[in-house]
């Protein structure tokens, strides 16, 4: 059955209203406070610990994002790994059920628009709000860094920073889609928020524990005979590591961590990353051992993570879309 008209009619109107709502809401004040606090702390730590290393470190600006003081081993990017989902859930958990609870849904859907427009407009508005916060934070950290460190960032550092912004927004998109899915499934905003937070807890804290256990469980089933006998080739190990990694990557948190590590640490790889780089025909012969990856090589390395997050957001959004299309609008 072909539908008449464009599914996007009205998307702009919904987007504009929702974005304005977000920016004027109390939630935005909370996000602003977070941005300022986090930004100031990061710059302060940089002033304390990084200032002296400016001359020694080629990527001093990137260290702003990845440096963690020994007393408190959480770096800026790691902090965002936790903060972004929380903010995204805060923006999306009542997107759809809120309309039902305010009894505005049937009035809105009796206007000449498709449900697509409402869902897409709301998703994009949430994403834009999140991106606004991230950009503000990014500018604060880069600007503060500039003042404190006394040197401008190199072009490559800026490019890596921007790549991080894009990746972080995609990561936010995954959680926004999860939050909106919950807001479609559950009529109660509290249940929706709680479920989304539960999913976040599961993937952030439990999955990294569960995934290796699952891998250990299936190892005897998937490993070639010679590995079990104790004589594995490098290819075998790489293959098995890939499987383990694949299981880990069910968690968006893990994928995001891989991605920002890839962007921010051109000169620091894990054993496994080095092996993967060597084996990757696109990268291998161009990597000179001991020297940092070029920006292009880093992008190639994190491209799968990025597409995985975008695809994940789209899949989850589609799930929500399908169940929203079938809902009866009685309020």
């Amino acid at each position, binding site marked *: 059955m072909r539908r008449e008209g464009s599914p996007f009619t009205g998307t702009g109107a919904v987007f504009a209203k929702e974005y304005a709502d977000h920016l004027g809401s109390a939630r935005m004040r909370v996000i602003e406070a977070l941005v300022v606090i986090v930004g100031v702390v990061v710059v302060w730590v940089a002033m304390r610990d990084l200032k002296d290393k400016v001359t020694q470190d080629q990527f001093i600006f990137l260290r702003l994002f990845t440096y963690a003081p020994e007393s408190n081993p959480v770096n800026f990017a790691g902090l965002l790994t936790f903060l972004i989902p929380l903010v995204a859930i805060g923006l999306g958990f009542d997107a759809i059920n809120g309309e039902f609870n305010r*009894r505005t849904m049937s009035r809105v859907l009796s206007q000449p628009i498709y449900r697509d427009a409402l869902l897409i407009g709301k998703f994009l508005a949430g994403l834009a709000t999140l991106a606004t916060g991230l950009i503000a934070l990014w500018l604060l950290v880069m600007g503060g860094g500039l003042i404190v460190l006394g040197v401008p960032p190199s072009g490559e550092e800026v490019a890596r920073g921007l790549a991080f912004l894009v990746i972080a927004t995609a990561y936010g998109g995954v959680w926004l889609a999860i939050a909106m899915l919950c807001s479609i499934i559950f009529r109660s905003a509290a249940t929706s928020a709680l479920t989304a937070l539960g999913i976040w807890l599961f993937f952030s804290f439990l999955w990294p524990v569960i995934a290796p256990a699952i891998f250990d469980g299936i190892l005897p089933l998937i490993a070639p005979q010679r590995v079990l006998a104790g004589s594995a080739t490098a290819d075998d190990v790489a293959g098995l590591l890939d499987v383990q990694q694949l299981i880990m990557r069910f968690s968006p948190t893990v994928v995001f961590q891989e991605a920002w590590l890839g962007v921010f640490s051109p000169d620091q790889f894990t054993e496994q990353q080095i092996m993967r780089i060597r084996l990757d025909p696109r990268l291998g012969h161009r990597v000179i051992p001991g020297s940092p990856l070029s920006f292009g090589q880093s992008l190639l390395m994190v491209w799968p993570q990025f597409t995985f997050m975008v695809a994940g957001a789209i899949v989850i959004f589609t799930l929500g879309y399908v169940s929203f299309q079938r809902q009866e609008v009685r309020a």
Partner: protein
Amino acid sequence: MSDDLVIEAKGLTRRYGRGPTLAVDHIDLAIKKGEIFGLLGPNGAGKTTTILMVLGLTESTEGTVSVLGHDPLREPLQVKRRVGYLPDSVGFYDNLSARENLIFTARLAGIDKAEAGKRIEESMARVRLTDVLDNRVATYSRGMRQRLGLAEILMKRAEIAILDEPTSGLDPHATFEFLEMIRGLKADGVAVLVSSHALEQVQSVCDRVALFNKGKIALQGTVEELGEQVLGLRHDLLVEADGQDIAARLGKIEGVSAVEPPGSGRGLLVRADRDVTAEVVAAATRDGGRLRQIRAIEPSLQAIYNRYFEGVKDAA
């Protein structure tokens, strides 16, 4: 489909779940251009479900519905562009002003900005909310929200207005005003489909009504037609006259079945099954009698409703 029909439903049915009961059970509806059509019936009779199917907000299980010549499920935008809907206990964005709420709706409806501004002023004036146009909707009373919903329909210049229990929860004066506004819609040539429990109000504004019972339309037509079907053909009169033995004289007229004091007020209620007006006048003025007042009693929807549902209960 004939030209002056704006909504036409045939065999429209909706089933929830797998049970044998149907929320709406093979109903036929035909609503004409410029008429006010009332949907009546007890709670859960299927009025709202019918409205949702007409709007395409829920799918029908069986049957067809055509709104202004379009199928609401296949061509939803065509239908929604020309139909205004005021849902049961309508909600607005409380954090926005009435004007901002209407601007948002206008954008969704694809009305351009300048035009929308003009229409908003106009329609808010018609529902007498001009003074509070820029107040937040959070400060609106229930009656004001209801009128704001109506303003939205006016702003859209809808050809059909569908109102689900628009007067529930309104005080008598607000109800009266609201009914006036519904008549105003009709004067503009808008077809109005209104569901309600308030029988007197429905009777006072509706040209035709459909009486719902357990998902079926039990009766459909003008109030007089319904009265005939349920109460039988009646020509009751209220007579007020001075004179000796008026009651006895009137009772002797052929066709008069009873003469009794009316439920309230003065005079006599003459129950008749044919038109006895001339005979009553003659009898009342004979022998120096003076006729003060005579008027036909129209069947009240309340009486029809009560009688019908008593009958249904007895049959069950």
